[in-house]
């Protein structure tokens, strides 16, 4: 038997792929890496700490007694530069937040609070909703869990981006975005989620659009975190797919199903959304 080379195929969607490469690289180059930001913040904090210590020591020597108030002042001084230095990430490019816990530096200092808005029905989300929800932030009072808006600025500044866990079907007002996970579907080795991401506002210095990526959505399972990159061996047909990546203006929404590869014996614990603008939200699909 003589074998023949299979015929060539054209690369699927080359335009999409090249733009993805350029966009990803631009996003990486435009935003200072978290590690570098942390490092710089730490350096500034250390410098301030040393300065404060020297001043405190100098003040202590003449009086000969301890300065009780010095410690809090030092702490406050170290917190300041860390926050100021952090919001330098490219505001118009949202990238999925790293899975590690160190997400603090990527959160802009001026990010709006995360609030919760119950979603009346699963099909109620439309492209026009973000504008209306943006006009009525007071609706956060209807949140089923304590609103992060009630958290003081000082408390939030000392923490990484706020993690909010809500029942499925709840719309969450994250920084600049309205996020909803409203449905799930399973079949074979696939666990699919119905989600919606709407741009409510733009960060300072952002252009007219935000780059939304499907990879911001992940699953937390009993076997660990599952990303959209995990290969699916037994695909199922979904009604409408969530876009892989795209730019969205205020009032625009990315909506659809996202499939994940999950083995049948794996329990899905949470649907997660994280990005570099401070959103860190989990939905409990078992409620």
């Amino acid at each position: 038997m003589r074998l023949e080379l299979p015929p060539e195929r054209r690369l699927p969607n080359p335009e999409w792929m090249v733009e993805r490469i350029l966009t990803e690289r631009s996003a990486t180059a435009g935003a200072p890496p978290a590690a570098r930001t942390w490092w710089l913040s730490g350096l500034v904090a250390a410098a301030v700490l040393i300065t404060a210590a020297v001043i405190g020591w100098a003040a202590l020597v003449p009086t000969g007694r301890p300065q009780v108030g010095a410690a809090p002042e030092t702490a406050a001084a170290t917190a300041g530069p860390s926050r100021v230095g952090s919001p330098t990430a490219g505001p118009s490019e949202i990238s999925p937040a790293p899975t590690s816990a160190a997400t603090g530096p990527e959160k802009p200092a001026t990010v709006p609070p995360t609030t919760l808005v119950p979603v009346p029905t699963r099909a109620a989300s439309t492209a026009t909703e973000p504008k209306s929800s943006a006009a009525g932030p007071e609706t956060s009072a209807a949140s089923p869990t304590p609103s992060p808006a009630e958290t003081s600025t000082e408390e939030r500044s000392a923490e990484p981006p706020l993690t909010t866990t809500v029942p499925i079907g709840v719309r969450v007002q994250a920084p600049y975005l309205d996020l909803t996970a409203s449905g799930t579907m399973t079949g074979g080795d696939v666990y699919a989620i119905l989600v919606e991401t709407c741009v409510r506002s733009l960060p300072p210095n952002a252009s007219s659009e935000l780059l939304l990526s499907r990879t911001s959505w992940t699953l937390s399972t009993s076997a660990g975190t599952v990303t959209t990159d995990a290969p699916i061996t037994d695909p199922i047909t979904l009604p409408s797919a969530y876009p892989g990546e795209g730019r969205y203006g205020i009032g625009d929404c990315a909506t659809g199903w996202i499939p994940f590869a999950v083995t049948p014996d794996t329990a899905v614990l949470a649907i997660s959304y994280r990005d570099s603008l401070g959103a860190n939200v989990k939905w409990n699909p078992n409620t």
Partner: protein
Amino acid sequence: MTALRGRVSQVVEVNVGTAGGGESDAELWHRLRSADEDAFRDLFLRHSTAVYNFCFRRTASWSVAEDATQATFASLWRRASGGDIDPLKLESARPALLTMARNECSNANRSRNRHLQLVDRVRAESGESVDNTAAWVEAESTMALIRQALAVLPANQRDVVELVAWSGLSLADVATALKISVGTVKSRLSRARARLARSELAGLLENHNEA
């Protein structure tokens, strides 16, 4: 018609050089070294299908090949952004790209779990037309058999077969890309042909560009 002719006749992209009135690879590469996005875009659209099919022949998987193609060009752009690209030594960028792709294909093959089958899935779900699924599954099976038969050759002979006989590069271009002499390329190809003369792959080494 031999397999090789069949393959070449189905190449759909613009070839290297100034075909179609565009810039030459050398000009685009020069601009790429300054991280010019348009130059990168043009080089990608010009050569990505060749890289994709080259990777398919090394991995016997369309989806892994797609992932490896993206990784190859992402690596190229990363290096371009960092000012870390050597001048192009040939008129065509294809030999350099295929050489880069060799490593990415190997990496992708070793970690198939990270490839993006979702791309094909989502495309299908959105209603966009896709190739005949049975045909490309069959292509993967055939390619797996070819890879299996080719495994009798040492890696350096396999490289030459893939680059010269299957990808249509000239001996001189392959020699430059692999940083070996033309004579070495020729002897490796000759040894490979002798080794496979009685195998089912004999026909796959008959037609190639030995200019």
